[in-house]
C-alpha cells in the first residue's frame, strides 16, 4: 500500500521545511502519531490517518500510479495548524454548511441525516428526493449549477463550510482558481474513479469525515458490505448464467460497458454471462450496431437502455432493435423504476450508496427461480413495457 | 434599305435603385434609333453611357417612362425573345469553371437552342463564323483566365455576333484592342449596320474612331443628351468640350 510512502513523504516534507524555514519545535510533532484507518477495505482512491487532534485524508487521483494528489487536514483547534505545510488543504471541523455538487453526494448527506446542513446542491433537475426538492423550491437549499459551470458569485456569497465536487483529484486542476482564492474549502471526491461497486459505496466514509459522522457512515457501509457479499454468494452459486448485454446505440456507436467496468462487475456478481466480460476495459467500448448484433442477437437479457421505459420508445429510435431475441421475449430491464419529471433515476442517487440493492435487483431479474430467497421487489429496475 | 424605328425612348428616366430610392442618372430622355444606324456614344466618365446601354437591353429597369424595342416596351418582352433582339458587350470580366472562349461565344446561340442547350449544326456553324470573323480561332479553346484583355474583349464581341441580333450594344469594346484591331472592329460594326441593317450603338472614348466610322453621335453631358450627325460633331459645343480642345 502506498501509505508507507507517506511517512517518508512527510518526513521529507519536514526536512525540506526545516531546511528552508526553521519552524519552531512546537509545530513539528503534530503530524506524528498518525494511525492509518485500516477499516477502509475496498476504496483505493482515498486513505485516512488520524491522531488525537487531527485527521488527514489523502486523495490518490493519478490514474497510473495512485500517487497522492491532494491532502486534507481536518482540525478543530486552529492553534495546532499554524505551520502546516502549504500544500495541505485545511478544513475546520465540523462543517456545518455543506454544498454538495452532485446528486450522489446529496443523497449521501441525506442518508447521513444531514439534510438540515445542506445549504446548496448543483441542480434540482437531477434530484428525486421530495424533501430536497421542496427545500430547493422554497429557496432553503440553493442551486449552484449555472449551465456547465458553477455559479461562483453565489457560492462565495453563500459561504459554505465545505463544497463537495468531483474531479481528477488535484485541486489545482479541478477547482476554479477564483474559488480557491476565496478560501472556501473544496473537497474533491474520486468515487467515480473507483473500479468496484463496494469501493464506490465506501466513499460514504470519506464524506462522513468532514462532518463528524464516522460512526454512522461505518454502520451504513458495513450493512451494505454484508448484504452485497451475501448476495454475491447467491449469484455465484446459481447454475444458469443467462447471457446479457447493455445500453443502446447513439448514431453509429454503441457504448458497451467494458469487461472490468462497474456494470460488468455487478453483472458478474449477479451470476450472469455478460457477453463482454472478457474485455479488459474499465470504461466503455464504442462498438457498431453490427458488432453488438452479431454477438448479442440471441442474448437472453438486455439492460440499461438509456432513459427509455417502453418497447415502443426503443423501437422508435431504430426499428432494427426489434430483431434482438431479448426484445422479442420482452426481457428488457432498465433502472428507471423511480424517475423524476425529467427522466433522472434514483439509481444515480442512492444506487451508488447501496450497490447491494442494485445487485438484489439484478439477481431478481436474471434468476426469477430464486424469488423466495430475495426481497421480491425492485429498488431501481423495471421491465420495459 | 428601308430604315425602321427600332429603339424608342419616351420620357425615360434612367438610373438605378439604391436603398429603395431612385438614383436618376439620365433624365427625361426622348430618343429614336433606326435600323442601319451606327451610333457612337460620347461623354465623360460617369455621365451615364453604361447606364443607357444597360437600360436599353433590360438589365436596368427604367425608373419612369418607357423604352420601346420594335414598338414593344422592354418590360413586356419574354426574356428569350428579347435575347434574340439585343446583344450587349460589357466591360465586366468573367471566368473560371472551365469556361473557354468557345463556350462564351457558344452562349450567344443559347436563345436559339432547346432547353437542354443542345447545339445543332446550324448553331455550330454560326458560332464558328463568329469566331472566325473576330479572329480568335487560334485561341478558342483557351480558358477565359488565360486570355489577354484584348482577346477577352474579342470573345465577348464574338458572342454578341453569334447572338445574331438586329440590335447590338457595345460598352467601350475597343478599350484593350490594339490599333489594327480597333479599326477592324469598327469596320466590322459599320458593315453590320450597312449591309445587315443592324442598329449598332457603341460607347467609346476613342473620338477619332467614332468620327471616322459612325453615322451618328449621341453626345451626353450631365445637362443634355443629343443625337447629332457626325458632320455636326465638330461644331457641337458639348462634343468640343469632351474633346478638350484636342479634336
Amino acid at each position, binding site marked *: 500500500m502506498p501509505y508507507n510512502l507517506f511517512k517518508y513523504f512527510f518526513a521529507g516534507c519536514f526536512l525540506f521545511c526545516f531546511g528552508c524555514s526553521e519552524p519552531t519545535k512546537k509545530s513539528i510533532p503534530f503530524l506524528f502519531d498518525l494511525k492509518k484507518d485500516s477499516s477502509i477495505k475496498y476504496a483505493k482512491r482515498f486513505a485516512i490517518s488520524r491522531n488525537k487532534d487531527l485527521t488527514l485524508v489523502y486523495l490518490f487521483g493519478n490514474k497510473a500510479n495512485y500517487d497522492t494528489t491532494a491532502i486534507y487536514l481536518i482540525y478543530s483547534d486552529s492553534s495546532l495548524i499554524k505551520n502546516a505545510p502549504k500544500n495541505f488543504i485545511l478544513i475546520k471541523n465540523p462543517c456545518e454548511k455543506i454544498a454538495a455538487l452532485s446528486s450522489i453526494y446529496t443523497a449521501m448527506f441525506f442518508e447521513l441525516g444531514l439534510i438540515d446542513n445542506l445549504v446548496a446542491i448543483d441542480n434540482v433537475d*437531477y434530484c428525486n428526493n421530495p424533501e430536497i426538492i421542496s427545500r430547493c423550491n422554497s429557496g432553503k437549499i440553493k442551486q449552484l449549477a449555472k*449551465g*456547465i459551470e458553477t455559479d461562483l458569485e453565489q457560492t462565495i456569497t453563500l459561504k459554505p463550510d465545505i463544497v463537495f465536487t468531483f474531479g481528477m483529484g488535484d485541486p489545482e486542476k479541478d477547482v476554479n482558481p477564483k474559488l480557491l482564492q476565496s478560501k472556501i474549502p473544496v473537497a474533491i471526491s474520486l468515487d467515480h474513479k473507483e473500479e468496484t461497486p463496494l469501493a464506490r459505496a465506501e466513499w460514504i466514509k470519506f464524506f462522513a469525515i468532514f462532518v463528524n459522522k464516522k460512526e454512522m457512515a461505518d454502520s451504513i457501509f458495513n450493512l451494505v458490505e454484508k448484504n452485497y457479499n451475501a448476495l454475491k454468494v447467491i449469484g455465484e452459486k446459481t447454475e444458469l448464467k443467462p447471457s446479457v448485454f447493455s445500453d443502446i446505440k*447513439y*448514431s*453509429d*456507436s454503441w457504448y458497451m460497458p467494458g469487461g472490468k467496468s462497474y456494470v460488468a462487475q455487478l453483472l458478474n456478481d449477479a451470476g450472469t454471462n455478460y457477453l463482454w466480460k472478457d474485455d479488459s476495459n474499465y470504461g466503455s*467500448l*464504442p*462498438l*457498431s*450496431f*453490427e*458488432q453488438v*448484433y*452479431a454477438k448479442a442477437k440471441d442474448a437472453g437479457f438486455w439492460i440499461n437502455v*438509456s*432513459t427509455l421505459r417502453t418497447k*415502443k*420508445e426503443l423501437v*422508435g*429510435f*431504430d*426499428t*432494427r432493435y426489434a*430483431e434482438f431475441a431479448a426484445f422479442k421475449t420482452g426481457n428488457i430491464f432498465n433502472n428507471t423504476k423511480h424517475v423524476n*419529471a*425529467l*427522466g433522472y433515476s434514483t439509481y444515480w442517487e442512492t444506487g451508488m450508496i447501496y450497490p447491494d440493492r442494485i445487485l438484489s435487483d439484478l439477481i431478481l431479474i436474471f434468476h426469477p427461480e430464486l424469488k423466495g430467497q430475495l426481497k421480491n421487489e425492485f429498488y431501481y429496475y423495471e421491465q420495459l413495457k | 434599305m428601308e430604315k425602321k424605328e427600332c429603339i424608342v425612348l419616351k420620357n425615360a428616366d434612367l438610373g438605378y435603385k439604391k436603398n429603395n430610392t431612385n438614383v436618376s442618372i439620365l433624365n427625361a430622355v426622348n430618343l429614336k434609333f433606326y435600323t442601319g444606324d451606327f451610333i457612337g456614344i460620347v461623354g465623360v466618365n460617369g455621365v451615364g453611357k453604361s447606364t443607357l446601354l*444597360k437600360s436599353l437591353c*433590360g*438589365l436596368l429597369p427604367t425608373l419612369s417612362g418607357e423604352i420601346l424595342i420594335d414598338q414593344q416596351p422592354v418590360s413586356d418582352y419574354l*426574356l428569350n*425573345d*428579347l*435575347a*434574340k433582339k*439585343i*446583344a*450587349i458587350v*460589357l466591360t*465586366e470580366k*468573367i471566368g*473560371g*469553371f*472551365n*469556361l*473557354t472562349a468557345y*463556350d*462564351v461565344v457558344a*452562349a*450567344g446561340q*443559347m*436563345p436559339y*437552342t432547346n*432547353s*437542354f*442547350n443542345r447545339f445543332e449544326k446550324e448553331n455550330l456553324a454560326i458560332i464558328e463564323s463568329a469566331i472566325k470573323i473576330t479572329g480568335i480561332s487560334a485561341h478558342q479553346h483557351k480558358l477565359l483566365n488565360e486570355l489577354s484583355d484584348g482577346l477577352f474583349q474579342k470573345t465577348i464581341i464574338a*458572342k454578341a455576333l453569334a*447572338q445574331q441580333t438586329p440590335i447590338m450594344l457595345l460598352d467601350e469594346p475597343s478599350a484593350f484592342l490594339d490599333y489594327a484591331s480597333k479599326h477592324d472592329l469598327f469596320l466590322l460594326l459599320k458593315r453590320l449596320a450597312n449591309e445587315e441593317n443592324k442598329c449598332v450603338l457603341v460607347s467609346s472614348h476613342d473620338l477619332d474612331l467614332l468620327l471616322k466610322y459612325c453615322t451618328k453621335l449621341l453626345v451626353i453631358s450631365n445637362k443634355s443628351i443629343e443625337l447629332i450627325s457626325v458632320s455636326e460633331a465638330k461644331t457641337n459645343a458639348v462634343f468640343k468640350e469632351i474633346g478638350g480642345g484636342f479634336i
Partner: protein
Amino acid sequence: MKENNTIKFLLLIILLVISCLLSLFYGGSESIHLNDVFSDNFIFWHLRLPKTITAIIAGCTLSAAGLILQIIFRNPLAGPYVLGISSGASLMVAISILAGGTLHLFSDLFIGKTFIVLSAITGSFLITLLILAISKKVNSNIVLLLIGLMLSQICGAIQTALEYFSDANSLKSFVIWGMGSLSNTTNFDLMIYFPLALIFLLALLFFIKPLNALLLGENYAQNVGINFRSNRFYLILISSVLTGLTTAFCGPIAFIGIAVPILSRMIFKSSKQHLHIISCLLLGSILLLLSDALANSAIKTISLPINMITTFIGAPMVIYLMFKNKSW
C-alpha cells in the same frame, strides 16, 4: 476530347461498382460473404444494404446541391451548408434532443428517430423559406451569402446556449448526431428518402440551360435569355431540399458538397454542366462509399465517424489536384 470523357465516365462507373461492393462487404466488423446475400442474413439486408444505399443517395444529393450553389454564386467555396441549411436543421434537432422534457409530450405521435428526422426537416425548411424570401428582395449574390452566413451564426449561437444548459446524456446524443451517420436509415426510411431525393435530382434536368448560362454572370445570362432571379430561386429551392433531406436522415455530412464539384471540374475539363451533374453524382457516391468502407473497417473494434473520414480522404485529394492543376 469527347472520347477522353467517355473513358473517364466508364472508369468512374467501374469505381462506383467497386466502392459499392467494398461498402457492402467490407463496411463493417463482421465478415459477410456472397452466400449471405442469398440467405436471409440480417446484417447484410438490414444493416449493410441500407447503409450503402444511403451513402449513394447522400453522396448524390450533397454534391448536386454543392454544384448548384457553386454555380449560382460563381464561387468554388460555396457548399450545401453555406446558406445556413445545416445550421437550421441542427438547431431544430438540438431543440428536440436537448430541450429534453418536451420529448415526452409527443411520445405517442412522433417517437425517437422520426421526431429527429422531422425536426431536421423542419429546421431546413424554415431556413430555406427565409433564404428564398430574402432572395426575392435582394439582387446581389454577396448580400445573399452574407445573410445566409448570419443566419448560420444565429442558429449556432442558440444551439450553443442549448448545449450549455443541457445534461450530459442529451448532450452526448446531440453531439454524436452532429457527427453524421450513414447507418441510421432503415429500409423503410429509404422508401421515403430515395424517391424524394430522386424527384429533386431529376428536377435538375429542367435547369441544364440556366446552369450553363449562370456561369456567365448575371448580366450576360440575362442577355442570352435566362432569368437570373427566378432561376436562382428555383435552384436554391432544389439545393435546399436535397441538403435538408440528407441532413435529416444522416445528420450533417461534411466536405462532400464543396469538394466533389471541385473534383469534378478538375477531372472533366468541360464547362458543360449536364456533364458535371452526372460526374458529381458518381464522384459523390464513390467518395462516400469509400469513406464508409474505410470508417467501418479501419479499426476492427470501432467504427469511426463518417465526417472525419470524408475529410481525411477528400481534402488531400483536392490539395494534390490543386497543385497539379491550379484550376477550379
